[in-house]
């Protein structure tokens, strides 16, 4: 019964700013270390437990390094569609992840990209277009792309289901 391990998926969220903990307030609160949360996702009549590591994006509060990347089933790259630099940095985050987590098949490691905060200012302050983000995703081996608003909850469930499906595709081989 190998399915138990398949029900438990480790997801790393990377980007210039954290994702999950921005749920309630726009106010700036620093994250210390990585924020750890679990989330249950149901699809295909099965219940999956995602263990989510949301990073701080603040080097000052990463004193122990990023050993928690290891063993991830999926990496979610988040950018703020209102901040160009956060999009520009996606590539750095992707590379940093592949170096630190050293997955066995980096070419096919599942990533998901989220363009977050699409709700801000009714979309008027947006600087990263959907087209631009999708083009980047296509160039990196067709990474799935979602536009979300963590604050409004827009598209978040769809994104997490995709994250779970992607993580499943790449079930890590049995260790040892």
């Amino acid at each position, binding site marked *: *019964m*190998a399915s*138990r*391990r398949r*029900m*438990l998926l*480790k997801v790393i969220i990377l980007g210039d700013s954290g994702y999950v*903990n921005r749920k*309630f*307030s726009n*106010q*700036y*609160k*620093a*994250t*210390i*270390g990585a*924020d*750890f*949360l*679990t989330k249950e996702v149901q699809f295909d009549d099965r219940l999956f*437990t995602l*263990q989510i590591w949301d990073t701080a994006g603040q080097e000052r*509060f*990463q*004193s*122990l*390094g990023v*050993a*928690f990347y*290891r*063993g991830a089933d999926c990496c979610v790259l988040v950018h703020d569609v209102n901040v160009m630099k956060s999009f520009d940095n996606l590539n750095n985050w992707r590379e940093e992840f592949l170096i630190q987590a050293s997955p066995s098949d980096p070419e096919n490691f599942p990533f998901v990209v989220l363009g977050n905060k699409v709700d801000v200012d009714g979309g008027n302050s947006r600087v990263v277009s959907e087209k631009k983000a999708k083009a980047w995703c296509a160039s990196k081996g067709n990474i799935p792309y979602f536009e979300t608003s963590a604050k409004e909850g827009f598209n978040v469930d769809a994104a997490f289901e995709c994250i779970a499906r992607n993580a499943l595709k790449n079930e890590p081989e*049995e*260790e*040892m």
Partner: protein
Amino acid sequence: MIADGVEDEEKWLAAGIAGLQQNAFYMHRALDSNNLRDALKYSAQMLSELRTSRLSPHKYYELYMRAFDELRKLEMFFKEETRRGCSIVDLYELVQHAGNILPRLYLLCTVGSVYIKSKEAPAKDVLKDLVEMCRGIQHPVRGLFLRSYLAQVSRDKLPDIGSEYEGDADTVVDAVEFVLQNFTEMNKLWVRMQHQGPAREKEKREKERSELRDLVGKNLHVLSQIEGIDLDMYKETVLPRVLEQVVNCKDEIAQYYLMDCIIQVFPDEYHLQTLDVLLGAFPQLQPTVDIKTVLSRLMERLSNYAASSADVLPEFLQVEAFSKLNNAIGKVIEAQPDMPILGVITLYSSLLTFTLHVHPDRLDYADQVLGACVKKLCGKEKLEDKKATKQIVALLSAPLDKYNDIVTALKLSNYPRVMEYLDSETNKVMATVIIQSIMKNKTRISTADRVEALFELIKGLIKDLDDAFHDEVDEDDFKEEQNSVARLIQLLHSDDPEEMFKIICTVRKHILGGGPKRLPFTVPPLVFSSLKLVRQLQGQEENPFGEEESTTPKKIFQVLNQTVETLSNIPAPELALQLFLQCAEAANDCDLEPVAYEFFTQAYILYEEEISDSRAQVTAIHLIIGTLQRMHVFGVENRDTLTHKATGYSAKLLKKPDQCRAVYACSHLFWVDDQDNVKDGERVLLCLKRALRIANAAQQMSNAARGSAGSVTLFVEILNKYLYFFEKGNPQITVAAIQSLIELITTEMHSDSSTPDPAADAFFASTLRYMEFQKQKGGAMGEKYEPIKV
């Protein structure tokens, strides 16, 4: 030795991972076959690897993370077991049979997490039990990781408002109590590390502590995420309890780090509403704590908050944030007498930024901050510390950035007093910043008093400060900074002539001390500024009030004369000559003959006595001729003297072609279109004939020296002058004279000794074409040209 240590550590880590993976493998098998007993046995053995004392925190974390991931699988298994009917209470009991305490506690926390989820017991009871049990581990590194495991697995199970684990009304209090207790215990473990082990390993220990710090700080982050903590609870419980722990631990590293954490993890409005309490902790910290950095970050946060929206500003006023911060800084500086000056300036710089954001209308606050800074600076020598001076530049730039207006900054009485403490290099940097601000914002500086204050501020650029033993100043840098001063002088303007004259005198007073290297940059803009004023006055009729003291062109010219004279002493005679000629022209427009004559005299003296380079002479003489030609103020006598001199200079130039050109240019001095009394055809002809003779001589010299005649260009140029005066109706210029000149040129061009010169040929050809054109145009001009055979 150290390298060995690192290698050994790698080995130990590898061994630990191998042991962990082996037991994980058996654990997986047990999980797959639903064998609870084996699952517990192998997971406990797996966790035994975490009992090591040989790994640095970084390496230990790697091992811990692998165990963490494995424990998630075990947790799922426990969950399934309970669904299959196994009692969670029994499981909670069962795991406590593990033989060793560390694995036992990890297992207990893991089951505890499922226990809370099952809701078979109130979350607070389970949490309380777990946080108490963890006291069993007193080894700092192992204890910190165990407790951080507890913090992580309980993170989303706290009985917070709106959470599914919420019980009665007091549940948030339970959650807070749990996290605070874990925090307190972790901080104790962390601080105790400092005092364990030999003194010689202090550095290594501090490095390890620094790696571990986020485990402790994590608890504060968890607190900040608890929704149920409202402002009251934060004020009454959370902040005082956290600060109590921070102050009482008396540990420098912990105090610095945790104060920073508090500031960064909790929201701005909480900080604002608890400023007294938070700031009250600072003077109680160890004297070695780097308070300036932490406090500056607090002010930076609050400044950003204030800048984010005007709606929040009343909050700042209501809590009197400025005076509280100001007091706190004063107390901290008092409590830390050894604080380096850099720290003091950094603090005041942050406070200034804060007040500029929050109280843009309260200039007195800004001045107060600068004044406090001066008080700390006084009695000290000028600053040598590079970082400190840089910080002062930041401090002084803040008001400029905020107001975009130096005029406002000039109102700050302490502003120049702070600048006094800069070394001359930094003084210059600051002066440049000020000038750039003025340029960028096109600030109007329109009174002499302000100009005086401004030049006092930027004096580092205006003159050598006394202490400046000039190190090699980069030539380009110097030019750039002086050019910026020049631009600044051009910008100073008042519409009121009286005030403008005062401004000019003020600037003059300051720049005259600038020395020979600066004057060539600073005098010209001042001269042109003054001439602008002259032209403004000249438009008006006589001063309506006829007051003696009022500004008149005459008075300005006097000042100008003295100003330009300083250049001839430097010496910069060519520049001085140009400026004298400019002045002469302006005096001409004001109908001030004696003044204009005086300026010409000055220019001539310079020409005779100071300008010896032949190239410079050529340039100068053409300027003289050009200017003199336009003068209409001179009577016959003065004009004669000046033109006579000019032709004399022209004929004495060194090179024949230069002589020739200067002499034919002089012809214009005797024939001015709009002046009927200057139409002396005879002397025009004399000039041109003289030019021809010189051109001939030039040809002969060329023949003698090089064996070939020079180009005919000079002749063609003279021909053009003939045509000019011919058209103007000068009776001395006859058809015959033109005809013979054309023939002369044609002959020269075809002579054997002539050097081919396509440019001259083309010039001649187009001159002939022009004449042909004039002929065919008909009318009076056509008739005039008719007799000439081309």
